[in-house]
C-alpha cells in the first residue's frame, strides 16, 4: 500500500455551522494503481484530494484520522516536511489548466522551479529535464514551445503541461482533480490515454477525481463512489458499473444520458431559414495599422478569423435541433446570431419567411438561455422581478399582473411559485437554470436557443433539466436549438443534429442515424473518442483531428 487513509474527517468551520466535507473515510491505493473517485459537486471528493497533501484552505481542517504515505503518517508533518513531499512524492493536477498555470510566467519558469525546488542541479540540467518531460507528454518542438506563456497554448496543451509538471519529479502518487472536465472529447481522450500510459510506464499511482463516471470506465482499475462526505461503494470497474450495490451508485449510473428517445419529425414547415451566413470577428483597424499592413510582407498575420463560413440551415417547427462541435467551432456564435445578440457579416436569416436582422429586432419570438446560471441571473433582483422584467417592458402584462403571470411560468419550469420573492443566491445551480428558462419563456417565444445549458450542472440535475426541455417541447410545441459539446446529451434529446467543425456544418441529419452511422470523418472521430461506460478501454482512436 502506498497510501492508506484511515477514518479521515475533514471539516469546515464556518460561522453558522460545521460542514463535514469529508466524514470518516477509509481508502487504500497500492503503488501503480489507478483509482477513480466519482461523486457530484459537494460530495467532498476534491476536499479529500486536498486533505492528502494538506493544501486545505481556511476554514477547512483535518479533525481526525490518519493518512499513511509509504507507511508514515503525514497528517502530523510540519509545513517544511510536507513541502518536501509535495511535488516530489505526491503531485497534483487541477481541473482548469487555464487557472492552474500562472498566466504571467513562462512555461519554462514554471517547469524549472518545480525541478529546482526538490533537486540540487544546475539550471541547464533542469531545463533539459523540463524539455524531456514536455516531449513525453507529446508536445512538439518542445525546446521552442517551452519559452511560451500559458495563453499561447490551447486548453489541451495546457493540461499536458500541467501533467508534465506533475510527472517531472517522478512522484509515487498523482492526485488529478477533474483534469479533463474543461476539455473537448477528442482532447479528453488524448489526455486520458496519455495519463494512463505514463502512469503505467513509471509505476505511478493515480487518484482520478471526477463527476463523470463514463470517463473512468476505460481509465481506472478501481472506482470509489462518494456521497455526502462518505465513500458509499468501492470496487473494480466492472463490479461498480455493471453491478452497482448502493442505491446512490445506481442513481448515478441511471442519470447518464443513454441512446436517443426522439424520432425525427415528419414536418417540412421551416420556422427558421438560414442562408449563406458568415460571421467574421474582425481585428480593429486604425489608420496606422492599415498603413503598416500595406507595407507588410507577411499579411496573413493580420487576417480576420472567420467564425462561421457560408452556413445554411433550416430549423423545422417544433423540433429539437442539436448543434454539436468542439470549442471554437462557432456553435455559440451561431446561436447568438439567430437570437439577434451578435451581428452577422453576410447572409440572410428568415423567421417565418420574414427576414430578421440585428439592426431592427422585430420580435421576441426567438429567446436564448445561457450556460452559466450563476452569472446569467442578476444577483440583486428578486426572482419575480427577473422573470417579469421583459414582459413588463414589452407591455405583455402590467406590474399588477406580474405575480400571477410569473407563478404560471415558475410552475411550468418546476419551481414552486412560493419562492418568487427570493434572490438567485438562495437557489441551487439546477434551480437557477430553471429560473433562467422561465425568464426566457415569459415573453412567449416560439424558438428557444439553449447554449450549453446543462454543462455546468451535475448529472442527476442535468437529467432533470433535459426532461424539462423535452416537456416544454411537447406541451408548448416549442422549437428548440440545443447547443452542446456533450454528444451523449445531444443524442439523448434531439430529433435532428448538426455537427459543426471550424465554422461549417459538416453533417446534418436524423440524430439516431448520425450517431449510429456517421458519414463524415469528423463525426466519426468525435464519436470514437466519446467515453462510454460500456467500453472498458480508452477510445483513443483518431489522430486525424487534433488540437489546433
Amino acid at each position: 500500500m502506498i497510501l492508506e487513509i484511515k477514518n479521515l474527517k475533514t471539516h469546515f468551520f464556518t460561522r453558522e455551522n460545521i460542514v463535514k466535507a469529508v466524514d470518516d473515510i477509509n481508502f487504500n491505493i497500492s503503488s501503480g494503481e489507478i483509482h477513480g473517485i466519482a461523486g457530484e459537486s459537494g460530495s467532498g471528493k476534491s476536499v479529500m484530494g486536498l486533505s492528502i497533501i494538506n493544501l486545505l484552505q481556511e476554514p477547512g481542517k483535518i479533525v481526525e484520522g490518519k493518512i499513511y504515505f509509504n507507511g508514515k503518517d503525514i497528517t502530523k508533518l510540519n509545513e517544511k516536511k510536507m513541502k518536501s513531499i509535495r511535488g516530489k512524492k505526491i503531485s497534483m493536477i487541477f481541473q482548469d489548466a487555464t487557472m492552474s498555470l500562472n498566466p504571467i510566467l513562462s512555461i519554462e519558469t514554471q517547469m524549472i522551479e518545480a525541478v529546482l525546488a526538490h533537486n540540487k542541479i544546475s539550471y541547464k540540467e533542469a531545463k533539459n529535464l523540463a524539455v524531456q518531460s514536455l516531449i513525453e507528454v507529446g508536445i512538439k518542438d518542445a525546446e521552442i514551445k517551452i519559452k511560451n506563456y500559458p495563453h499561447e497554448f490551447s486548453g489541451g496543451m495546457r493540461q499536458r503541461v500541467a501533467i508534465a509538471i506533475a510527472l517531472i519529479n517522478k512522484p509515487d502518487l498523482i492526485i488529478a482533480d477533474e483534469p479533463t472536465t474543461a476539455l473537448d472529447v477528442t482532447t479528453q481522450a488524448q489526455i486520458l490515454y496519455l495519463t494512463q500510459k505514463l502512469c503505467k510506464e513509471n509505476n505511478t499511482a493515480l487518484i482520478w477525481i471526477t463527476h463523470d463516471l463514463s470517463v473512468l470506465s476505460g481509465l481506472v482499475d478501481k472506482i470509489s463512489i462518494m456521497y455526502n462526505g462518505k465513500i458509499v461503494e468501492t470496487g473494480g470497474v466492472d463490479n461498480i458499473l455493471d453491478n452497482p450495490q448502493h442505491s446512490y451508485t445506481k442513481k448515478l449510473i441511471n442519470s447518464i444520458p443513454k441512446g436517443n428517445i426522439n424520432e425525427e419529425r415528419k414536418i417540412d414547415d421551416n420556422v427558421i431559414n438560414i442562408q449563406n451566413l458568415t460571421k467574421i470577428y474582425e481585428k480593429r483597424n486604425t489608420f496606422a495599422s492599415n498603413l503598416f499592413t500595406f507595407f507588410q510582407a507577411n499579411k496573413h498575420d493580420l487576417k480576420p478569423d472567420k467564425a462561421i463560413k457560408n452556413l445554411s440551415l433550416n430549423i423545422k417547427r417544433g423540433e429539437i435541433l442539436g448543434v454539436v462541435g468542439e470549442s471554437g467551432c462557432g456553435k455559440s456564435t451561431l446561436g447568438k446570431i439567430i437570437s439577434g445578440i451578435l451581428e452577422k457579416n453576410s447572409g440572410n436569416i428568415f423567421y417565418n419567411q420574414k427576414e430578421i436582422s440585428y439592426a431592427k429586432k422585430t420580435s421576441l419570438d426567438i429567446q436564448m438561455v445561457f450556460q452559466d446560471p450563476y452569472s446569467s441571473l442578476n444577483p440583486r433582483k428578486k426572482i419575480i422581478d427577473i422573470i417579469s422584467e421583459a414582459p413588463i417592458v414589452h407591455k405583455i402584462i402590467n406590474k399588477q399582473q406580474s405575480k400571477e403571470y410569473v407563478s404560471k411560468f415558475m410552475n411550468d419550469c418546476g419551481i414552486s411559485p412560493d419562492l418568487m420573492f427570493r434572490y438567485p443566491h438562495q437557489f441551487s445551480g439546477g434551480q437557477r437554470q430553471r429560473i433562467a428558462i422561465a425568464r426566457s419563456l415569459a415573453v412567449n417565444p416560439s424558438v428557444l436557443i439553449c447554449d450549453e445549458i446543462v454543462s455546468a450542472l451535475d448529472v442527476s440535475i442535468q437529467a432533470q433539466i433535459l426532461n424539462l426541455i423535452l416537456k416544454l417541447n411537447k406541451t408548448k410545441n416549442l422549437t428548440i436549438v440545443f447547443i452542446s459539446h456533450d454528444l451523449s446529451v445531444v443524442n439523448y434529446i434531439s430529433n435532428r443534429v448538426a455537427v459543426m467543425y471550424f465554422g461549417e456544418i459538416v453533417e446534418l441529419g436524423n440524430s439516431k442515424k448520425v450517431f449510429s452511422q456517421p458519414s463524415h470523418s469528423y463525426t466519426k472521430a468525435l464519436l470514437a473518442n466519446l467515453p462510454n461506460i460500456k467500453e472498458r478501454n480508452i477510445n483513443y482512436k483518431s489522430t486525424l483531428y487534433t488540437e489546433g
Partner: protein
Amino acid sequence: MLFINYKNLSMLIFLTNRIIQSFIVLLIMSLLVFAAVYAIGNPIDVLINPEASEEEKIKTIKNLGLDKSLFEQYYIFLQNAFKGELGYSFVHNRPAISLILERLPATLELTISALLIAIIIGIPLGTIAGLNPDNFISKSILAMSIFFFSLPTFWVGLILIMIFAVSYNFFPSTGRGDTVEIFGFYFSFLTFDGLKHLALPSINLALYPLALVIRLTFAGIQETLPLDFIKFARAKGLSRFRIIYYHLLKYILIPIVTVIGLQFSVLIAFAVITESIFAWPGMGRLIIESITLLDRPVIVAYLLVTVFIFMLVNLIVDILYSLLDPRIRISDK
C-alpha cells in the same frame, strides 16, 4: 518593403497611433485652454497701474498682443507653438516655457520621491496585511491606511512642521536646501541638506498614495491567494518565498502599476497644496501666482505641459503593462 516581425510591428503600430492621438489631444486641449483663459478676465486690469495714462495703456495692450481677436491670438499662438515657443509671460517678461521648465524638476523631484515612498513602504505593508488578514499587525496597518486616506493634506503638513521642524528641529520646514546642477537643471536629492529639505514635503504628499498602494496590494493578495495557480504552485512544493515573490506579487503588480501611473499625474496636480505649505519652489506655486495675476501665457503653457506629462505617463504605463502581462498584445488596445 519593410520586413519586420509581428511583435515589433504591433509595437510600431501602437506607438504611431499613440503619437497621432497625443497630437490631436494637445491641439484640442490648447484650444479649450486658450478659450477658457480668454474668458476668465482681462489681464490689463491686473497688470497695468491704474494711474497710468491712456496712451501708455494702449501701448501695453498692443505690446502684449491683446488688441487682436481671440482667433488671431490663437493663430499666432499656434504658429509659435510649432516653433517650440509658448509665449512670453506678461509678468516676468520671459518665455513661459522656460519659467515652467525651471520649476519642473522641483515638482518632479517631490512627486517621484512621494511615489517611491508609497511603493517601497506600501507594497510590503499591503503584503503583510494580505497574507494574514486576521492578526493584530495587519489590522493596525489597514486601520492606519484609512487615516492616511482621510486626513487632509494641508493639516498633516502643518502637523509635520509642528512636530519635526518646530518642536524637535529634525528637518527644515521650508525651501529646497542645497542643489546640484545636472544638464542645467537643479536637483536637491543629491545633497544631504537637500534630502533633509525634501523629507517632510514628500512624506506629506506620499500619505494618500501610500494608503492606496496598501489597500490595492491587500485586496490583490486576498483575491489571488485562493486562485488555482497559487494552489498548484504550493502543490509543486515551492518555498513560501518563491510563491509570494514570483507567483503572487508579480501577478498583483499589474493593477498596482496602472493605479500608480494615474496617481503620478494626480500627484503633480495635488503638489500645489504641499508646495504652498512647505514653500517648495515648484510648478504648483508658479501656477497659483499666474492665475491670480492672469498671466495667460504661463497658464496655457503650464496646462499644456501637464497634459503632455499625463500622456507620457500613460504611455509608459501601457508599455509596462504589456511587459508585465504577456497576455496583453499591445496593438489590441
